[in-house]
């Protein structure tokens, strides 16, 4: 059903944009990692929308989580003589050779969402990524402002142990609340970024902290864990969003539904729109020849219950999260 709809939409879009595509002044090849998460799928569909908006011809190659496929795709783009290459690198190392080939062909490369390790940073034009430390800080700042000096014990659901978003989002949040001596993290445990573990760990927190009476706020490193934890809070007979404040990161559609129901308070967006700023930087570079900064940081926007969550939910639902 949805598959058919997609094909129909695809053909309609293709027909509508056939004119612009033929006249496109830019052709960009995008080597995407794959579709390992809902966010990744959303990034792909937003990239297509942003390209259409600007009349850019975007060719997407799905690498199915394999670096060799990405290298093949980049060589293919070089052979086709595209105007620029976008790369969401699946791993950090091993890109030097293929990027030198692109450089020799004078095709600028822009990194999306993740960066690479290389001794020669002239191999790419710029990198468009989110600052995960900053995301944590935005969440921390929100909590400091919201509790306004009242004492507040926070429980934290960490991401997968050792993963960089988990390390950075923890650090950022701690930076954010460092100035507020009234806020303390009393418990911190990993929920592996999943709903099921988020729920299980929250059940443990609730028991360990006087049935939840001693918890003032929950900070989860992603929305999925928060959604699981919200169920645990409800089953313990408490009101998530009122008895226990809930703040998390990512801004996936389901957390907006929870916010609309008053069960979550805030989320910090990890925007799936990495391609938009990349297109803008590319256009400016092509027009003026001036190279952009080496790092373009995407906005980490804070959403609260006041931001009409139901409307955002409807907007985000169709993006493939």
């Amino acid at each position, binding site marked *: 059903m949805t598959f058919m709809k997609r094909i129909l939409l695809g053909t309609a879009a293709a027909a509508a944009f056939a004119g612009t595509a033929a006249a496109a002044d830019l052709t960009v090849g995008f080597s995407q990692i794959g579709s390992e998460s*809902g966010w990744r799928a959303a990034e792909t569909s937003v990239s297509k929308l942003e390209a259409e908006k600007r009349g850019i011809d975007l060719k997407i190659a799905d690498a199915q989580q394999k670096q060799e496929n990405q290298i093949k795709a980049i060589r293919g783009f070089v052979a086709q003589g595209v105007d620029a290459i976008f790369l969401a690198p699946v791993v950090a190392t091993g890109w030097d050779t293929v990027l030198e080939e692109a450089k020799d062909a004078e095709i600028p490369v822009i990194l999306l969402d993740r960066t690479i390790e290389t001794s020669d940073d002239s191999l790419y034009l710029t990198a468009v990524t989110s600052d995960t430390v900053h995301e944590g800080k935005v969440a921390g700042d929100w909590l400091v402002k919201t509790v306004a000096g009242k004492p507040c014990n926070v429980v934290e659901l960490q991401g997968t142990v050792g993963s960089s978003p988990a390390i950075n989002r923890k650090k950022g949040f701690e930076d954010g609340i460092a100035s507020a001596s009234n806020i303390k993290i009393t418990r911190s445990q990993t929920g592996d970024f999943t*709903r099921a573990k988020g729920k299980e760990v929250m059940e443990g927190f609730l028991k360990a902290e006087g049935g939840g009476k001693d918890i003032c706020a929950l900070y989860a490193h992603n929305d999925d864990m928060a959604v699981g934890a919200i169920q645990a809070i409800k089953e313990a007979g408490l009101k998530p969003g009122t008895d226990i404040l809930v703040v998390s990161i990512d801004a996936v559609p389901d957390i907006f539904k929870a916010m609309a129901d008053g069960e979550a308070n805030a989320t910090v967006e990890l925007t799936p729109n990495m391609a938009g700023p990349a297109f803008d930087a590319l256009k400016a570079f092509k027009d003026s020849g001036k190279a952009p900064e080496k790092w373009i940081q995407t906005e980490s926007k804070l959403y609260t219950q006041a931001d009409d969550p139901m409307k955002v939910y409807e907007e985000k639902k169709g993006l493939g999260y």
Partner: protein
Amino acid sequence: MSRMLMAGLTRAAPQLICLAVILLLNWLAFPGFFDMRIQDGRIFGSVVDVLNRGAPVVILAVGMTAVIASKGVDLSVGAVMAMAGAVAATMTVAGYPLLVVLLAALGTGVLCGLWNGLLVGFFDLQPIVATLILMVAGRGIAQLITEGTIVTFIDPGLIFFGTGSFFWIPMPVILAVLVTAMAVLLVRRTALGLLIESLGVNRSASSYAGVNSRLLLLLIYAFCGLCAALAGIIVSADIRGADANNAGLWLELDAILAVVIGGTSLLGGRFSIVMSVLGAIIIQAMNTGILISGFPPEYNLILKAGVIIMILLAQSLSRTGFLHVLRPAPTQTAEAKVKRA
């Protein structure tokens, strides 16, 4: 009867002592561990959490015990959980009645089990390889069914299997008890248990003795798939959504571990379903203890590995005697040396 009970308790002594020690440690780490109260019509407390969270692995372990007793192993149960959850969630969202949804999800598990049984019983693939195929492919199929997203549902009937309760007892616990009781009755009140054990000890000998080993293997793997599907329904009902990427991830290892802690040999033969269930509860008591202990999460896996080593050592020592390790290892006899030369 009481003598049989005593014999059973003696055999289960190492596991029971382990469980008692873990519960004691949990109580020391968190004095409110044994507190209980009624909350929204169901019992609420850490001990209930252990049973409730342990239920999916208990159910997996019941099926896994039968497979391991037949000298096999089923690595695909985690992926089957994800598939059954995905089927249940997508069909619920599509508006099918609860009974159809349940039958379809359980049917998925049985089909997967039949596939494994076919590969092991009829095509003589090694169980670890045969079930590895579905372990990898199954999660892909689950992702295809959910189209890569977490499919959420609000149907109260399906949710009841995860968070509902009956006489104040959480539904997953009731299901786990029912599955265990039925499986024990089935294998111990009929000849089925004996046939499975004979298959595990020596398949060709039992075939010569008239056991239809192919059909039996087919049934054993189908039963294991059925258990996995039920666990998958519980897990997705619990979070009101099917998460194809993470549902049941690595749970096949927990299920195998539960069977091993319960004392069933990976080489097949004698088995005990009740002991495997005890093993699953030990694992969950440890998990819950780690979560409420307040240790930093970096220690989770180390603590878990440490405790498991202790349990298995205790088990091994209680069987062979404490002095066994001090005795020199058996050496080759002169006769054997001559034969080899």
